[in-house]
């Protein structure tokens, strides 16, 4: 079986920087793959190589079995790209932007207008169709940008940070759109800084940093590599930290990370049931807890586990 996307030892350098450093990536046809990493990890560069905007310096990259370096025109005919910054023309209306792309893709005026109408309706932009894009909100622009990649159905769709700087409602809308696209059989490769996003949309995740692929697998596999859950406990009195660490450590069989916040204890726990017990131990010992949480590891924590150091630019998402 040929993969929708397959890279082998892919390298892209800018001067001294190896933006993409021998990445081996395989994306199954029809699946959604999430490329996860902080800013500057090499996600955008990878996508730009795969969409023929950049030439690889070493290694190979194939999209739908086509070599991106040798057959760029054939690759462009089958893929769609929505970049990180809304690449729609602000001076033009929503309709004009999509008709423009339709015409460039060889549709007749009639067909281009018809598809534009359907897409604007589907993406909740019908009311704004005749307005200049500069009047659109961030979420509307992003939806229009994605619609522009779908004027002609791509076999592989590349989405570079499709929800960055969107409010939660717009983010949900974009997620729905991505699911609908995937349901039609299009392979989707998306980049994100948010584990939650990758978790919800992608079957498989690839974590990259400094141009290197650190881990690849399902989100469950990745989380297991970090410890299934993350416990945070905040103490009323930081001076009782040593006592609390000892009590919790005994009950949970785990060690605590030393952070800058003396009143906050964080640890990975594999046994959720034991957490309730452990907290009861604290209460019995008279150690007052002001807040606690138990949740999935954040991207930060995945990074900490995979690289032994925190991500340079922490994900904006708060751990709950």
């Amino acid at each position: 079986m040929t993969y929708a996307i397959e890279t082998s030892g892919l390298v892209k350098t800018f001067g001294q920087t190896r933006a993409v450093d021998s990445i081996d990536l395989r994306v199954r046809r029809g699946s959604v793959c999430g490329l996860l990493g902080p800013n500057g990890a090499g996600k955008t560069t990878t996508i730009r190589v795969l969409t023929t905007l950049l030439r690889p310096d070493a290694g190979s990259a194939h999209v739908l079995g086509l070599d991106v370096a040798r057959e760029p025109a054939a690759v462009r005919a089958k893929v769609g790209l929505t970049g990180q910054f809304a690449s729609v023309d602000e001076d033009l209306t929503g309709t004009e932007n999509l008709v423009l792309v339709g015409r460039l893709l060889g549709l007749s005026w009639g067909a281009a207008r018809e598809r534009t109408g359907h897409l604007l309706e589907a993406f909740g932009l019908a009311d704004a169709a005749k307005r200049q894009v500069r009047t659109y909100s961030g979420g509307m622009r992003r939806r229009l940008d994605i619609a522009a990649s779908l004027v002609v159905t791509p076999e592989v769709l590349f989405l570079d940070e499709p929800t960055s700087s969107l409010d939660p409602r717009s983010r949900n809308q974009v997620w729905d759109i991505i699911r609908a696209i995937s349901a039609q059989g299009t392979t989707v490769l998306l980049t994100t800084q948010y584990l939650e996003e990758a978790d919800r949309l992608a079957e498989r995740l690839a974590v990259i940093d400094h141009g290197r692929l650190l881990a690849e697998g399902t989100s469950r596999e990745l989380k297991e590599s970090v410890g299934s859950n993350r416990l945070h406990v905040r103490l009323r009195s930081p001076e009782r930290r040593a006592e609390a660490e000892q009590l919790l450590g005994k009950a949970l069989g785990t060690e605590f990370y030393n952070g800058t916040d003396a009143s906050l204890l964080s640890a990975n726990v594999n046994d959720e049931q034991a957490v309730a017990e452990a907290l009861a131990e604290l209460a019995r010992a008279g150690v007052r807890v002001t807040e606690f949480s138990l949740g999935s590891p954040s991207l930060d924590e995945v990074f900490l586990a995979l690289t032994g150091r925190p991500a340079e630019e922490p994900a904006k998402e708060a751990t709950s």
Partner: protein
Amino acid sequence: MSTDALSAGAQGAFLRTYSKEERPGLASALSASLTLAWRALLKIKHVPFQLFDVTAFPVMITVLFTFLFGGALAGSPGAYIQFLLPGLVVQAIVFITVYTGVGLATDIHKGIFDRFRSLPIWQPAPVFGAVLGDMIRYSLAALVVVVLGVALGFRPGGGIAGMLLAVALILVFAFSVSWIWMVVGMTVKTPESVMTTSFLFLFPLTFLSNIFVDPATMPGWLQSVVGANPVTHLVTAARGLMHGQDVIGNVAWVLLASAVVVAVFAPLALRLYHKER
């Protein structure tokens, strides 16, 4: 799936668009370029300001120079405008050529060029489309200045034919200058810096010429500078054509100079366009 983004009806619309499996035949090079020229026209429609802020300056100069200096320089405003107007058309168009570079730099800056470059189109189409659109913009600007001039008393001896030939020659020159701005637009980091660069270049180019006065009254060293300025040759040719004089030598000079500029800068612009960024 939440109904927030895609309601049932909208989903149907989405699927209708999406399930069409046939991919259209690709757009031809000409069709892609024309489509991108159409985009330039839409921009003029939506942002007419970009046309007027560059024509406002020549319009102001036309009115100001005609009435303020006309009497002193040529005996009367009516006499001066016969001399001045052809040069003002040149100045207006040469100034607008900068917008080719500004538009291109803006497209690159905002990522619109990435979208075009990721489409299966003839790759130089965005460049040629931009130039085509600009030719329309130049024609409109020329029309504005000529109409204003005629309203102020400009009576060209060469008639409509002479006028059209003169404007055509100016457009050929502007076409060649556009390629210089293409190169600038693809080299600089931000659209604003194209503007800044342009004024350093365009003010001397248009003022150190025979647009406003006959160089005969200038000191000798300045006369040689003005004489070497391509704009001077263009103005002499345009002025002659508009007034029905024989300026075949200057016309040939301008055509040759334009050809040289295109031969140098068009390949350079296309190479820069293909460069990675």
